[in-house]
Structures are given as C-alpha cells and as structure tokens.
C-alpha cells in the first residue's frame, strides 16, 4: 500500500511539472463544456419560413400573421419565382403556399388545402416544423372562429411535462456533456502517461525495481483519479454556475457514480496505454474512439432506443451511457437510488474489467511477480 502511495505521489509530481499538460488538462475540458453547452441545441427556435401568398386577402394575411406569432418562425423573402427557390438556396427551411382561392373557399365553407414544403434534410427539425405548422393552423382556425363548435374535439389532452416543464434543452445536454468530458480527458491523460514511460524507457526502471505490475498500475490509477476528480470539480462547478443546474435530490448516487466512473476512465486509459505498442498514434486513435463512443453510443444527443440492433449491444458496455443516466437523474429527475441503483454497479464492472486487462498486459512484460 505504501509503495502504491509513493508511486502515486511520484506520478502526481511528474504531472505537475509538465505545465502544458496541466494547463490543457483543465482548460480543454472547460472549452469543450462551453462549446457543447452553448452550441448543441437540437430544436430550432428561429426557423426561417417563406410564404407564397397567391390569395393576398385579409384572411390569408391573418393566417400568415398567426404563423409568425409564435416566434418559432422568422419571415424570409422568396429569392426567386420558383416555389422551391428559398429551400434550394437554404435561406428558408419551409415554404407555405397559400392557394389563390383560399379566402373564397374558406368563406364558402369549402375545405381548402394549404401546401407546406419542408426541407427534410434536418430530420428532427422537419418534424418540429410539421408539428408546429399543424398546431398554428389549428390555432388560426379556432381564433378566427372557423371551426363550428360541434366540430371541436371532445377530448382535451392535458399534457404535463415532468422534471423539465420549460423544456430547457440545456438541462438535457449539459449533464450529458459531463459524461463525455469526464471520460475522454481522464482516459487520455492516463494513456499518455503510460505511453510516455514506455517511449522514454523509464518503464525499465520499474521493471528493475521490485514493484509488481499491479502496484505500479494502482499508483498511476490513483494519481490520475485524483487529477480527474479535480477536473470534475472544475467542470461541474462552472457548469452549475453557467447553466443553472441544481441538485434535484440525493447527491450520493452522483458522488459514488462519479468516483467509479472516473476510475473506470483512468483504467481505460491505462489499458490503451498498455496496449499501444510504441506510438502515440494509438493514443490518438483512442482519443477519437473514446469521443465517438461517449458522444454517439451513450444517449448523449438522441435517445438510446434509436440505436439500431448490433450497435445497441455495444452501447451497453459504454460506461458513459450509465454515467449520463446518473447525472441526468441527479440534476434533472431527482429520483435517487431507486431509479439508478444499477448504474454505478455497471460502471464498476466495466471499469474493473479494463483494469484487469491492463494488469494482465503489463504482467506479461518484465515485472517481477
């Protein structure tokens, strides 16, 4: 135990002396937090919408003003005469075409169809646009008394959004960012530290000592766990201040989950560092791989259920997936242990596996038994 501690101290000293790495270890996570936290918004708010009004009557103008009344759409002029010109150029995401007989048909109580052309490129927003065009049309009909009372729906759905009634997207995104940042950077630092020992040959000194591979690795694990906890503290403090996150319930699942998760991240880094033959190229590769898995297979952006079959199996062994469930629970849902008791266990199991593999690889090197 004492030898593990002195290993850890030595490692921390080495880390502290490398000023550039220290700076990057704390500045980079913050930079990523800011960019992701502010720039990832899935639902468009100011959707450019162009209208071609062939009717040009008071009623059609009322309809148009209703479309823009919600602030979800921003009026954009049509750049050409063709109906799709605004969409082709990308200046508008949707074009509403009001037919010439619009007001005549409506006053004659004849059904009339308004055509909406929606840019389907961005699938998510295409759906949002479709929904809100339908809703505003409905609202227009009701507010202009165009729906006879007996045509109104008898069933009134009272929708209540739990946990996030204002539908703030930052409440969804920011806890997810913790999962990405606190995986990628701790594992990268640990991997770099291990590869550096191999490249500079200082690992030979460890071979020559009577340290076992387990002690050597545990020392590194502990040192980088401390560094990672520092990173977590900085990132979470800044995030709670900037994005207004609050603890919703029992903070102990987050505390336990955080320590287990960071330990797993460091173990993953050590595993990669142990595997990487000689070159940092492997580290580069895993930096990308870590980013990819933590970003895409963790439910960070879109629902986990949408990942198709073979990939969905992979997402089960991505610790970020479980950690994001923990952070979302801690900062948004607030259920505590009954909701996510399994998550720290899953992370610990996967992290333990990483650590075990790393010791096995190093054991095959020239460490004394």
């Amino acid at each position, binding site marked *: 135990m004492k030898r593990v501690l002195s290993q850890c101290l030595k490692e921390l000293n080495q880390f502290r002396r490398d000023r550039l790495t220290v700076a990057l270890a704390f500045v980079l996570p913050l930079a990523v937090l800011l960019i992701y936290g502010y720039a990832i918004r899935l639902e468009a708010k100011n959707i450019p919408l162009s209208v071609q009004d062939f009717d040009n009557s008071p009623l059609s103008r009322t309809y148009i003003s209703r479309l823009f009344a919600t602030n979800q759409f921003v009026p954009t002029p049509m750049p050409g005469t063709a109906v799709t010109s605004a969409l*082709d150029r990308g200046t508008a995401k949707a074009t509403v075409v009001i037919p010439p007989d619009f007001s005549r048909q409506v006053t004659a109580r004849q059904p009339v169809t308004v055509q909406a052309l*929606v840019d*389907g490129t961005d699938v998510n927003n295409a759906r949002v646009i479709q929904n809100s065009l339908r809703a505003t049309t409905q609202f227009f009909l009701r507010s202009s008394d165009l729906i006879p009372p007996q*045509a109104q*729906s*008898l069933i009134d759905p009272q929708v209540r959004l739990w946990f996030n009634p204002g539908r703030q997207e930052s409440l969804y995104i920011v806890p997810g960012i913790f999962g990405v940042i606190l995986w990628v950077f701790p594992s990268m630092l640990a991997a770099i530290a291990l590869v550096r020992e191999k490249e500079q040959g200082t690992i030979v000194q460890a071979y020559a000592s009577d340290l076992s591979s387990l002690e050597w690795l545990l020392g590194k694990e502990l040192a980088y766990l401390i560094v990672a906890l520092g990173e977590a503290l900085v990132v979470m403090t800044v995030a709670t201040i900037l994005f207004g996150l609050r603890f919703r319930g029992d903070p102990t699942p987050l505390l336990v989950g955080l320590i287990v998760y960071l330990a797993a991240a460091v173990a993953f880094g050590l595993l990669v560092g142990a595997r990487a033959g000689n070159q940092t190229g492997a580290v*580069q590769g895993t930096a990308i*791989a870590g980013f990819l898995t933590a970003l895409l297979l963790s439910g960070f952006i879109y629902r986990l259920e949408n*990942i198709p079959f073979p990939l969905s199996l992979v997402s089960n062994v991505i610790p970020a997936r479980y950690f994001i469930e923990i952070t*979302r629970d801690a900062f948004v849902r607030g259920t505590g242990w009954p909701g996510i008791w399994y998550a720290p266990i899953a992370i610990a199991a996967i992290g333990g596996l990483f650590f075990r593999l790393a010791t096995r690889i190093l054991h095959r090197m020239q460490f004394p038994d």
Partner: protein
Amino acid sequence: MGSYILHQPETFFPKRLAPTPPNHSHTPPPPKPMHPLRTFRQSRLWALILKETRQILRNRQIIFLLLFPPTVQLLVFGLALNPEVTHLSLDVVDYSHSPVSRELVATLTANDTFQIQAYQPSVEDLGQRVRTGRVSTGLVIPPNFADRLAADRSVEVQVLIDGVDANTAGIASGYMQQLVNRFGQTLRQTPDPPVAIATRFLYNPGLLSSWFFVPGVIGVVLTLTGSLVSSTTVIREKDVGTLEQLLMTPAQGWEILAAKIAPLFGLLMGDVLLASAIARLIFGLPFRGNYVLFLVLSGVYIFVAIGIGILLATISSTQQQVVLTSFFFNVPLIQLSGAIAPIESMPTFFRVLSFLNPLRHYVTIARSLILKGVGLEVLMPEVLALVSFTVLLLGLSINRFRAQLN
C-alpha cells in the same frame, strides 16, 4: 491532383535552378527544353514526392488511420445518431374501462409512435414508473370518460411526459395532442376542418436521419483524418530529426512541403471516394448534384484539413501535444459546423461565428450537392468562402512551417 502538381515545375523552374550550388556534382545539369512531363519526372520535386509517398505507404499506422477511423466514424454516426421519435414507451391508467377508452389507446398505438408498456392500476403507480425512468409517457383516462362522451360533453385526459429529453418530449407532446384531437373528432363524425395543411418533405422525403448526418460526417472525417495524418507526418520528421537532413539537401522549403502535401492529398482524395462509396452503398444517399463538382470541392476542403495539421505540427513539439492541441481546433470546428447539431438553433453569437468556419461551408456544400442537387450558381457564396478560408489557412500554416525551417 495531377494538374496541381504538374504546374509547379513550370512556374518555379527558374527559381529551382538559381540556388543550385556548384559543388553538388549529383544535381543534374540544366535540362534542355523537353516535354514538360518528362522535365517534371526528372525534377527534384518529383523525386521528393516519390520519397514521401514511399515513406507513407510503408507506414502501416498512417494507412490504418486513413482507412479504419473514417469507415467506423461514418458507420457509427450514420447509424447511431437518430432523432426519430417512435416506439415511445407508454403506460396507461384506464379508470374508465370502457370500449371507447380502449379505442383511444388503440389509436395512440396504431402508428408506432407510442408503444404500450403496461397498464397501471393507479396514477401513483404510473408516477412511480415515470419517476424511475421505466416509462417515458403516461396516459390517464378518467372514470367518467365514457359517460361524458356518451352525453356529448367534453372530457379531459391527462398525459404525463418525461421532459428530461426536451427535444423528444416536445415532439411527443405534439404527436399526442394531434392523435387525441383526431380521435375526438372522429367520435362525432364532423366534417374535415376547413383549412388543412399538407406537408411535403423535400430532398429527404423518407426523413431518414442518416441522410442528414452522413454528408456532414464526410466533412468531419476529412477534418479529423486530414489534420491527424498531416500533423503526424510532419511532427515525426521533427521528432526524429530527419527534417534537418532534408534541409541540408539543396531542396527548397517549398519543395519539401509540396512533396509532403502531394501524397497526403492523393490519399485523402481516396478517403473521399471511400466515404462516398459508403454513403452511396450503405446509406443509399442520392448524390443528386454534379459528382465531379463534389470531388473538386472536397479536394479544396482537404487542403483546409492539411493546413490545420501543419499548423498543429508547428505549434506543438511532440505528438502528445498535437493530440491535445488538436482538440482546440477540431472540437469547435466540428461542433460549430452544423454537421451534428443544426446551426439555426445555436445562439446568435455562435451562429455568426460559424460563418468563419470552413467546415460549415463544406457541410452546406456537401448536403446541397448530395441531397438537393443544386448547381454551382446556388452554392457560389459557400464556394467562395471555402476557397478563401483554404487559401488563408494553408498560407498561414505554410508560412509558420517555413519560418520554423529557417
């Protein structure tokens, strides 16, 4: 690629001759006027290009980096990023137990948007299930549901939606309201509403999310791979010290650099072909625009990626630093490009900032050419922006590299 290299020896021919020191007996005598291609094949630049190409092809790691990550990234991005809102789990508390309430539930689940998970005996049980995250939506049908409907009086149903995922919750709530409203209207057999809105989705009628992500990810892949591979080749030379050896030779700075860039460019063009093959064959992207134009503009973008790589290599002194500093460039570049999250929904500051992002323009170009099938006349602003950023970035990085050489 060919035209790019072939023009070099003619323009730089006099410059190449001038500094040739007389004591280098192995340099060829000034060649007589010959076929330009043969002149080129005998030039020092060609020899350097051959050397660099061989060096890269021998390097397994670089070949691996060129093939493996782009394929995996395209596949994972294309398959895993899916904003679809279907099969939302739904728990029902039916206090009414009537044929009409069962009919309402059947309508909700008819088109796969909602999927019944379980019936719950009470609202408390439902609340517990939503709270622990077992189910994401809940519907509560009151006991007087059937009676009130039979009496032609309006009735409320309660819908609970887990709002943690704000985006999905918004779409789910819209769907729920539409479905319930439509069901309520069918009960009375009322005429269709006077104004109906018919939506047609252009460019991506099936609303396939991969069609949105894959063109953007081609740009992401080129950025990551291009900057990684070019910084690795340059920094390796600095690390090992072979750059000094190259400097001792009569080769000019520009020749060394051009010879480094040329094979990288060729290999990255191979990545463009690889990416378009995956896009076409696996994701079935339509490639409606001019494919040659797509290749040319991708070629322009490759120089951006190479420029970033060289810049990274001049800033950092070791490969580890390259890895870390590359985050500073690539994370904002990718996040503010619209490849993953739409630009329109970003705050104004980032939206304006994104105009300075070459990747943003490339992603717009790629999506327009692949999905919309528009021509150069529509894309002119993006093309001009992309070309000017390319020239700027490549010029900056080459300047820095040459400054370090001297």
